[in-house]
């Protein structure tokens, strides 16, 4: 019954979630009209294996299916098909056992009671997590300590900052002393300082021996925080590896971003740029062409780019040389930027 350490923290196979879009009115049902609702695959066949003790990230743009996946792991959503085992427990067969061992932070600060103090919030949830009464006090203090809120424990949550509320939501997820913590966009809406702080807390979870599965659409976050990253788009995993290995899949040492002022549609200049680098992406905003190019050496490519622009009758307005990021990996896989 009990999960052995050899079992992965999460093992999902062939996971699919289909939602229906649009609605079918009572009248349409009554008259037996055909069902015109669109069936939409929010998650479209995901296989996922998260090992014990790692920080695993799901990176993807808006609507990729990250939240839907997390909710299926957390028993809030029933998958259309596929199997999930969390800490060796079948989620569909024994949802209550999964809930007792899983720390989940899905909707963050909104899901707290703002009219109660942090401690009162946690007392309530500790009872719901079936924490034995004699351990409750210590468990709450531990959770508050690990998110650095112990000194504000008796303040009303409505007087907290967004970052503090987010940390309190994380503290709540720690109440069952979970071996696995899942976090849906833990740093969304936080200022850089608060986000850095929360990431530090997440690293501490790993050093306490817990497994962390998180979603994000910040590529820096995935890069800095995660041991392994799955890039997810349109409900499918398009790449899965360590951040370093993912970045090495791009056959380029450097990434050059250009802004080119031009009069025509830019086809000529793009063609010429393509001779000395891989144009990963180009986008036109009235009169300016933004280009992302992958190249072996910026030192060689940048002068070539100026020549290419001049001979096509265009002018380069801005040049930026940046290291390869997971964003570039995403672009090279999907042809789109993460955030658009």
């Amino acid at each position, binding site marked *: 019954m009990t999960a052995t350490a050899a079992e992965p923290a999460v093992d999902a196979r062939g996971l699919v979630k289909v939602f229906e879009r649009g609605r079918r009115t009572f009248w349409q049902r009554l008259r037996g009209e055909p069902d015109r609702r669109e069936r939409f695959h929010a998650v479209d066949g995901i296989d996922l294996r998260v090992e014990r003790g790692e920080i695993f990230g799901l990176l993807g743009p808006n609507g990729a299916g990250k939240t839907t996946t997390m909710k299926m792991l957390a028993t809030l959503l029933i998958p259309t098909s596929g199997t999930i085992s969390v800490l060796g427990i079948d989620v569909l067969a024994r949802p209550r056992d999964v809930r007792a061992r899983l720390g989940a932070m899905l909707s963050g600060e909104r899901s707290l*009671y703002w009219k109660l103090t942090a401690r009162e919030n946690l007392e309530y949830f500790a*009872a719901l*997590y079936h924490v034995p009464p004699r351990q409750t006090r210590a468990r709450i203090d531990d959770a508050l300590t690990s998110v650095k809120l112990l000194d504000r424990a008796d303040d009303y949550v409505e007087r907290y900052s967004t970052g503090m509320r987010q940390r309190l939501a994380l503290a709540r997820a720690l109440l069952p002393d979970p071996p696995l913590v899942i976090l849906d966009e833990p740093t969304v809406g936080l200022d850089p300082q608060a986000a850095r702080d929360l990431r530090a807390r997440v690293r501490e979870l790993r050093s306490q021996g817990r497994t962390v599965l998180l979603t994000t659409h910040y590529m820096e976050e995935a890069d800095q925080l995660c041991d392994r990253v799955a890039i997810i788009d349109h409900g499918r995993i398009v790449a899965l590896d360590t951040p370093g290995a993912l970045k090495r899949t791009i056959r380029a040492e450097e990434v050059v971003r250009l802004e080119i002022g031009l009069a025509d549609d830019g086809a000529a200049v793009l063609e010429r740029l393509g001779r000395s680098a891989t144009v990963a992406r180009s986008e036109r905003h009235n009169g300016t062409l933004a280009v992302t190019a992958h190249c072996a050496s910026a030192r060689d490519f940048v002068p070539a780019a100026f020549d290419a622009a001049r001979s096509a009758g265009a002018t380069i307005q801005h040049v930026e040389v940046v290291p390869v990021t997971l964003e570039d990996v995403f672009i090279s896989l999907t042809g789109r930027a993460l955030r658009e």
Partner: protein
Amino acid sequence: MSLLAADARAFVAAARKELRMWRRYPLFILGLLFWPIVLPATWVLMGQAYSGGGDARALAAFAERAGTTEFAGFVFVGYAMYMWLSNLLWGPGTALRQEQIRGSLEAVFLTPTSRLVALFAPPISHLPFSLLNFVTMGLTLWLVFGIVLPLGPVLEAMVVIAIGIPSMYAIGSLFAASVLRFGETGPIVQLVRGTFVLACGITFPLVMLPGWAQAGAALLPPTYIVADIRTVLFRGVGLGGIAIDLVLLLAFAGLITLLAVWVFRILETSARRRGTLGSY
């Protein structure tokens, strides 16, 4: 610790959380003291005016239909029922709905506690307020209208209330469960509450209703509670005389509870399929 004991503790914690939230709205207590006095008092004054200031023949006519000449007491008992019902229809449904909108319902559903805790705990937390209502009304009857309720019948009335509690809270839970699906509480509450006011004889004796409406009223637990409280308080009938009603009330409580659990189960599974647990 067994699962049941753990769920029981969760239940207590949930009711306690509700009460702690009320604590943040101290003015709400003022309303709790104000309405139970003002509303029934206006009806009593109206009754006094219509009866020519307590004319003997008018009182006899009332007694013929209501079984007592204590019309102030009659109205107050009716209103106590009304306030109790209103609290139960508004409170738990609204509480559950707010949790759903805010997203805390999802957080509750992430825990291993039985879902029934979320369903049944909010109504129970309203118990102290209902008791406060009853006490205020009793005091008003005494201080304003000079009606002193004798201790024996008051204790008997409390037994009736205690036996009525499960069925009343089952109604509150059933209502809360359906709110999860239909969202908007306002219009449904008005409709249900209006029906109860009319059918359960809040300000008038039931015999004033047409026959079919009386038959309908016989299916609503508050009808029995309000009638039985009046019977023990004002007609000198003991609990033995209303035993059948009390058994019926317990049966109602069981039935409505099962219905509430069933509705809630169906709605929860459907929400887990359609992903609407945290939406509105």
